[in-house]
């Protein structure tokens, strides 16, 4: 019985050294050397292309908040990233997310990534979805499924081409860019499925809005 403690302790120590630290340090070394952009979070000038942002409170002079950009999917905080309660910095919230409004103090929310976890027959989900549909209708958008449902991570960085096309009337009105030009912009920013067959066609909202900003 007691004679088993020595190998148990030695084995636990070896495991901790090898599989805890040598593994992770060697992995980090290789990752930083070969894929340093990805390993550090795919961060570009305006944020990580892998982490969704709250676009619904973007200031658009003369137009409702968030109407001059393409918006991402809603999330659980807020009520939503497509935020009916304007001025409340909800939305995609990795650890802390802040939104600044001209002339006001930035509003910050603490949190971590989260899904709503609402069941398919939840009254709360029903009410939330109704609020989102009203939000989109007020902006002349006939919403697709993705635009009224929240993601699993809480900061889905992507939308589908159909979602972006649904937002065209709103963006076109607020930016004055013709629907045809927006349509070709969307086509240009659409990523095909991985290897041609894995997953859905998608658009990275940050990249789409960067391209949109160049167009204006």
């Amino acid at each position, binding site marked *: 019985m007691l004679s088993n403690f020595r190998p148990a302790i030695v084995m636990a120590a070896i495991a901790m050294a090898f599989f805890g630290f040598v593994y*992770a340090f060697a992995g980090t070394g*290789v990752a930083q050397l070969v894929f340093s952009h990805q390993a550090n*979070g795919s961060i570009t000038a305006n944020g990580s292309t892998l982490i969704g942002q709250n676009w619904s409170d973007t200031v658009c002079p003369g137009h409702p908040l968030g109407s001059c950009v393409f918006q991402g999917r809603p999330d659980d905080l807020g009520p939503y990233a497509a935020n009916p309660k304007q001025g409340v910095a909800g939305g995609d919230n990795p650890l802390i997310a802040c939104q600044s409004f001209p002339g006001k103090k930035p509003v910050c929310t603490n949190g971590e990534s989260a899904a709503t976890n609402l069941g398919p027959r939840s009254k709360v989900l029903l009410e939330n979805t109704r609020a989102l549909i009203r939000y989109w209708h007020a902006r002349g958008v006939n919403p697709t499924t993705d635009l009224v449902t929240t993601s699993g991570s809480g900061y889905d960085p992507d939308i589908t081409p159909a979602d972006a096309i649904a937002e065209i009337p709103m963006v076109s009105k607020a930016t004055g860019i013709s629907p045809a030009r927006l349509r070709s912009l969307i086509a240009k920013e659409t990523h095909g499925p991985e290897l041609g067959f894995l997953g859905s066609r998608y658009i990275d909202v940050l990249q789409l809005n960067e391209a949109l900003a160049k167009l204006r």
Partner: protein
Amino acid sequence: MGFFWTIATLFVALAITWRYLGSYMAAVFDGRVHFLGWLERPLYRALGTSPEHEQTWKRYAVSLIIFSGVSLGLTYLILRIQGSLPLNPQHLGAVSPALSFNTGVSFLTNTNWQAYGGETTMSYFSQMGALTVQQFVSPAVGIVAAVVLVRGFSRRSSSTVGNFWVDLTRCLFYILLPIAFIAGIIFVGQGAVETLAGTATIHDVLNGVSQTIARGPIGFMEAIKQLGTNGGGFLDQNSATPFENPTALTNWLSIYLLLSIPFSLTYTFGKMVGSIRHGATLLVAMLVIFGSFLTIGTYAEHQPNPAVAAAGVVHQPTGNMEGKEVRFGDTSTALFGVASTQTSTGSADASYDSFNPMGGFALLGGMMMGEVSPGGTGSGLYTILLMAIIAVFIGGLMIGRTPEYLGKRIQAKEIKLAGLGVLAMPMIVLTLTGIAVSIHAGRAGPLNAGPHGFSEILYAFVSQGNNNGSAFGGISANTAFYNIAGAIDMLVGRFGVMIPVLALGGALAAKNVVPAGLGTFRTDNTMFVGLVVGVIVIVGGLTFFPAMSLGPIVEQLSHGKFF
């Protein structure tokens, strides 16, 4: 079409893996692989053992239990004092005693139930030095326990079943480490984060947003998380987060990794007992169950979400997208969910809580069958072998002969041990679910109302009892009641099965082989597949059907009702 090719490529990749990884693992455990001999020898010296030093099943079990105890103590200690340890850029404090215990048990038992949000609770030191370590060790322990049972069939009149320390070392270094490391590189290449630097702060001039983003050594943990059917991710939202599972390709890779060892072990079994056909028979039984739940799951998730439809978006061509990520889509997410719940992995690339009623049914059902299709690393093989032994017994009763499996007589002792192993899980799961719904502390857990709230409680105990670790995430599990009850559930679900399995391995190894005769009941044909599947469905299905009908089934039938 995309989904067809996803399935087709997975099938081909897994078929090749089954053949080659399966025979490689058999070679490892037969001691025919030596390329790391220079590393093995000093390790055995430090452990005070050697491959020639074989153990009886009792000594093997004692070594396994003491090692598990030491591992649990170490994990608990690290979580309790993480505030004073290095590699903690976010300065996170100590984890509470109940949560540390629950988490320690959870990672020890290959469950990876997480009652905490990783990025706001665990320091890098804890993630690497405590949790990732167990993600290597716990699947290895599961595999070596299965190997003992396999040796029970392959050895004749033998008093020993192998050496725990040697088997464990070989499994870790020859099997898990190389595959995990290569997979880790792919994860990072696709966009998974792997850094020791702390959080990143960004500012977007286009929308005035600043974000503080959690980072860490995520990518390589992700690799072993899937390969070892662990499931516990670095971040709270697990494989749904782009930093853990950045693309549809890593989603495919995750599914491949978590299925590879459990499926391949049936080949290893066949190879070691000298009849690949017997391994293939078990594989087919696994595939029948897996395929059934996959069909239900993908079909259900391709249907509209009822609440979203009732609110006004009736046309949902992309299926139920509540809680799902755009880059994966509905069917691949359902495939991931079914694979993850039927392998005791429990990783999640979506919110399982928001699956349609029958989608949730598919996830729960796969676990209720006892995690045999294909089940966890090692635990899947040994649990289906228990089912096979019971099937042989029932078959033997029907034709009135003493049952045999692979030439070993299955007698009263073996049946008792197999029965014990098969019943441990349903007994603890149903008892704890019953307690939870009848006391206030238990009923305070669920987020959703109505039958879905009950499903959340049931799911929690089914998941932990089967060492799966996935959750209907709405439940508030970080309470004293759920932490302690869950830990008991996980310990019984793990060791309540594993100890009878080791005893069974010992009992069978001691027996001699009876030559097969004309009247021998065949255990390598389609009929036996049917018998094994039948036993699994009766044991899992009938035990849990009443509970299941109060949850997902009622929910599915409540047309037009919202809770």
